[in-house]
């Protein structure tokens, strides 16, 4: 099993006696894309800032590739790329000038890198325009280009799709996934738009009230939190009893929604239906990230 690239143990942080992070434990493997998800004000941005060594924690230990953000901050920042929520670009300079400036700051030697990224993020036609005149989506794409200038080993993305239109979201997320596959860059993506992250991240950390309440891959979280599987089957079957093969269901038009104890039951159920009827589609309803998110929050808030 691969060793953890980022280790965070018992991390605490408060501002003016208000606790923002409490007993945070967080681990990321090298090359993993992890979604850091939680409601607004849960502490995601503060956590990212602490990992980058620009805010001091009150207590706890952090190791990123064996480095401590406070002692070896510049080494961590050299290998990190970050997209902040406010994008942090210079509005009075053009897109190209911004990228050249950050290239120098990050010590990028490759002169073609700026043009490469402008082309990649569809900004080449706007390279001479002042960033102040950019749309929100263009600023986000430029911020992402800025974060990738020095080919970082870790990418911190704080709400990278905020303000993007559906095309922009698709462009950015599919690029991030492809980039991760090609380069093995570790990525931490903060977001509260859950369905966007589902196909991009390999695992998820749920942050709530300043604590990481759960962390793991979607499959293992599903196993842990989903006790009743809701499966929607579009079929010609019209059962006459309130239960079918002993499983409860409800019907909506020509669809039946079954409450099943596990995934394994799906094929048994389908086999039985197909003996006498047709099946047009089968969909599991409550195994998506959003359902799991609410289950996790419910479980931890109920404690």
């Amino acid at each position, binding site marked *: 099993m691969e060793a953890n690239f980022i280790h965070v143990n018992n991390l605490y942080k408060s501002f003016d006696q208000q606790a923002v992070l409490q007993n945070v434990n967080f681990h990321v493997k090298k090359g993993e894309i992890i979604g850091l998800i939680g409601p607004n004000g849960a502490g995601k941005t503060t956590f990212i800032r602490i990992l*980058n060594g620009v*805010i001091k924690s009150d207590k706890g230990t952090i190791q990123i590739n064996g480095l401590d953000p406070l002692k070896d901050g*510049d*080494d961590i920042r050299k290998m990190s790329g970050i997209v*902040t929520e406010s994008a942090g*670009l210079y509005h009075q*300079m053009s897109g190209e000038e911004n990228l050249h*400036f950050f290239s120098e*700051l990050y010590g990028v030697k490759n002169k073609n890198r700026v043009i490469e990224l402008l082309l990649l993020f569809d900004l080449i036609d706007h390279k001479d325009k002042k960033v102040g005149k950019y749309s929100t989506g263009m600023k986000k794409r430029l911020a992402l280009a800025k974060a990738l200038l020095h080919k970082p080993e870790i990418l911190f993305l704080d709400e990278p799709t905020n303000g993007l239109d559906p095309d922009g979201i698709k462009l950015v997320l599919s690029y991030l996934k492809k980039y991760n596959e090609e380069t093995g860059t570790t990525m931490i993506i903060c977001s509260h738009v859950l369905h966007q992250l589902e196909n991009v991240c390999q695992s998820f950390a749920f942050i709530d009230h300043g604590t990481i309440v759960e962390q793991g891959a979607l499959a293992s979280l599903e196993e842990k939190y989903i006790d009743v599987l809701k499966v929607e089957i579009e079929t010609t079957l019209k059962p006459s009893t309130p239960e079918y093969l002993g499983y409860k269901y409800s019907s909506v038009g020509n669809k039946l929604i079954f409450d099943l104890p596990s995934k394994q039951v799906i094929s048994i159920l389908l086999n039985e239906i197909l003996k006498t009827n047709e099946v047009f589609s089968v969909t599991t309803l409550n195994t998506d990230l959003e359902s799991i998110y609410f289950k996790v929050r419910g479980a931890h808030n109920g404690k």
Partner: protein
Amino acid sequence: MVSKAIIRKDIIDITRSKTLLTTLIVIPIVFSVFFPLLIMGSALLFDIEKVTGSDLNMMLDKFVSVMDSSVAAYSVEQQIVYIFINYLLPTFFLLVPIITAMTVAANSFVGEKERRTLESLLLSPISIKDLYLSKIIASIIPPLFVSIISFVISGVIINALGYPIFSTLIFPSTNWIVLICCLSPMIILLVVLVNILISSKVKTYQEAQNIAGVVVLPIVALIIGQISGLFLLGVELILILSGVLLVINFVILYRISKFNDRPDLFEKQIH
């Protein structure tokens, strides 16, 4: 190592900001074009000797008695112009580097904070010391440049209009040369250092300007209030004052070079 990228970026920033650029253009015009034009023009157009009374003549005699012996041989008109150019104008002239340095340096960190770009800088691998030093250099260049240009323009005006009165070039005197080479750069550095420190501690430009007005202006006023006297007393004292400022600047710079608290700077932003 200072970051050339930050220096270049800051200078671009200043030249593209209408407010900063206006200050950098208007202030030198007022103090290095308008003032010399006014006095030299008056001397050429009006008969100053007739306007002045006996009280002024007595005062002139006192002034002249401590000056170079050649001044005593001047006519009253020449003496008035000479005193204005060499003893009063320097006080006004110093306002050029002071006001421009204050404006530029106060904007330095606060401008980044207000536009939420300081976060990007602090999240990049630049050390706090290098960030401060780069910002200091970027804030020194415009006032230094502007004051040298102003010096040249003043010189051209004074000599062009002064030649018919004196039949010789009266500018620059040794005092002026020491002022532009030693005192002005030291004052620029002091104003920049103090304003950069303020700019890094406060959150808005307004706040930076207010504090600078309360803390920096009185000190500066105290210094420039003495300039006429210093000029009268000679080059040595101007050099000594420049030396004292050099030591003060060095102490502040040394302290800044020890700055290493990134979280402290980060937390003094608008969130």
